[in-house]
């Protein structure tokens, strides 16, 4: 490959984070030539800057930090025969004509300091590019544009990879997990965290992170509060915060927190620039590709998994989904043809369901998110207006992804071919 020859690779995986490495291990272990393309100087993606523990309990069955998870995943992928190209940026993904037998080849144009511009041709591609952070531009916060406003992930990288401390006093906007983890990291580095501001009435992050990252350090969590303004001309000086009532800021109860640093932890966006350019159709709700029961996008032979598909709560879930994608790629390249796909659709109180299809000939796993908070809820699946599956759920909230395992027998017994509608019912 390095000499510019046009070997055809069976699986090219774009992105060498939790998703790419886990998928690559599976396809390589099945004997498929597999290349993972990673733009950073080492594999692992964002796990490398997540130096805290709490990873791997499900996937590796031991508690790990992010870098350990990354290194182990990379080792296992490499041992399986997967080749990882680091420092290599994919510039363009396209479907190249003519095809090679039954597979239309995918062309992956990339560049690296070592090899210059190069092209890979692949029978199949797995999109595993992950996500990026929402930033100040995605929120409407007025004020000047002083130094000291960061995304939480940017501070995480500055502190954990580059060794910088960003300021002395910080306010965190948004209560996503990265922001909470950074509240503890900043505190342990001697930075005073003055508060976390969350617009919703409940925190976005995991309960355990509220406990170990905020309560341990007596950091106030301001729920149902909106950041109105970031003050300071050259450097951040303070932020103005107003509590919300019926969705409106109550200005006479507004208050200020002085700080020199603002972190924003306000959600992640699947990174799909390459997919879009390749013509992959996206779901406007998830921001990720529309996929069928095989996690295949609208383009034959292009699959997607991990945060590029939809945002996950845990790296372990990403790895599990990526392994599933890997298995579907193996079946696809083995010549298995899809039969009788049943479409899926989000119904009442459900924001989205992934994948967009179910395979009636096998067990199916669905990932979904609720539209709101519900206690003692029930997940129902209807087909052609008939209830075919129902299960109680203790507690449902948008921040926690729901996983539904639908046994094959359910679809077999229903005999239907109509759309599966997923809905959540309170009480």
């Amino acid at each position, binding site marked *: 490959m390095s000499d510019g020859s046009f070997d055809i690779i069976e699986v090219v995986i774009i992105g060498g984070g939790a998703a790419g490495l886990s998928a690559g291990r599976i396809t390589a272990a099945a004997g498929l030539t597999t290349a993972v393309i990673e733009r950073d100087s080492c594999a692992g993606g964002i796990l490398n800057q997540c130096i805290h523990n709490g990873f791997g309990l499900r996937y590796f069955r031991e508690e790990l930090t992010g870098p350990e998870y990354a290194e182990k995943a990379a080792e296992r992928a490499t041992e399986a025969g997967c080749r990882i190209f680091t420092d290599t940026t994919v510039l363009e993904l396209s479907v190249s004509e003519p095809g090679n037998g039954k597979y239309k080849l995918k062309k992956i144009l990339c560049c690296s300091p070592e090899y210059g511009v190069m092209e890979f041709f692949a029978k199949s591609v797995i999109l595993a590019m992950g996500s990026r952070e929402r930033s100040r531009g995605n929120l409407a916060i007025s004020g000047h544009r002083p130094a000291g406003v960061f995304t939480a992930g940017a501070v995480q990288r500055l502190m954990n*990879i580059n060794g910088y401390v960003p300021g002395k006093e910080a306010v965190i906007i948004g209560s996503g997990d990265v922001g909470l983890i950074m509240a503890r990291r900043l505190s342990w580095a001697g930075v005073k965290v003055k508060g976390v501001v969350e617009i919703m009435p409940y925190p976005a992050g995991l309960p355990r992170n509220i406990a170990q990252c905020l309560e341990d350090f007596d950091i106030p969590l301001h729920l149902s509060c909106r950041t109105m303004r970031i003050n300071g001309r050259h450097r951040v000086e303070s932020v103005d915060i107003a509590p919300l009532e019926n969705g409106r800021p109550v200005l006479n109860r507004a208050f200020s927190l002085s700080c020199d640093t603002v972190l924003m932890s306000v959600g992640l966006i699947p990174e799909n620039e390459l997919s879009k350019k390749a013509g992959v159709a996206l779901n406007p709700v998830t921001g990720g590709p529309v996929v069928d029961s095989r996690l295949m996008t609208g383009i034959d032979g292009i699959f997607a998994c991990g945060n590029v598909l939809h945002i996950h709560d845990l790296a372990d879930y990403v790895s599990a989904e990526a392994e599933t994608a890997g298995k579907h790629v193996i079946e696809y390249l083995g010549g298995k043809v899809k039969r009788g796909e049943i479409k899926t659709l989000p119904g009442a109180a459900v924001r989205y369901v992934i994948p967009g299809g179910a395979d009636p000939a096998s067990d199916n796993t669905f990932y979904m998110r609720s539209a709101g908070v519900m206690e003692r809820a029930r997940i129902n699946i209807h087909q052609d207006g008939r209830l075919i599956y129902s299960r109680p759920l203790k507690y449902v909230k948008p921040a926690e992804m729901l996983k539904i395992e639908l046994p094959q027998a359910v679809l077999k017994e229903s005999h239907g071919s109509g759309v599966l509608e997923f809905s959540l019912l309170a009480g």
Partner: protein
Amino acid sequence: MINEQRICIGCPAGCRLRISGEKNNLEISGNRCAKGAEYACNEINDPRRTVTAAALPDQPDRPCCPVKSDRPVPVAIIGRLLAGIYSTPVKLPVKRGEYLIRNFAGTDINVIFTRTVN
């Protein structure tokens, strides 16, 4: 008489623990596994946390070397341990699992590297 609530940090489930009774005879509910009960007891008698940090390497152009305590650390000495980590020089290369600090202040707590940095 103890009557407290905690969120278990043992795994992402985040069980809401209710702790009551006396220090040496605690009643715990809300946990979905044995780890939760153990965590609740420790929270009352000897709260501990796993400590993670990034140590600066001797070569400024290389990435930081992330480290963790190989067991949970009593909350009262976390500050001292962090100061110890921040002031211990790191000589590259380091391998994942190697020690930055052994037997910190006679506590049996070790600090190990969590990433290989060449």
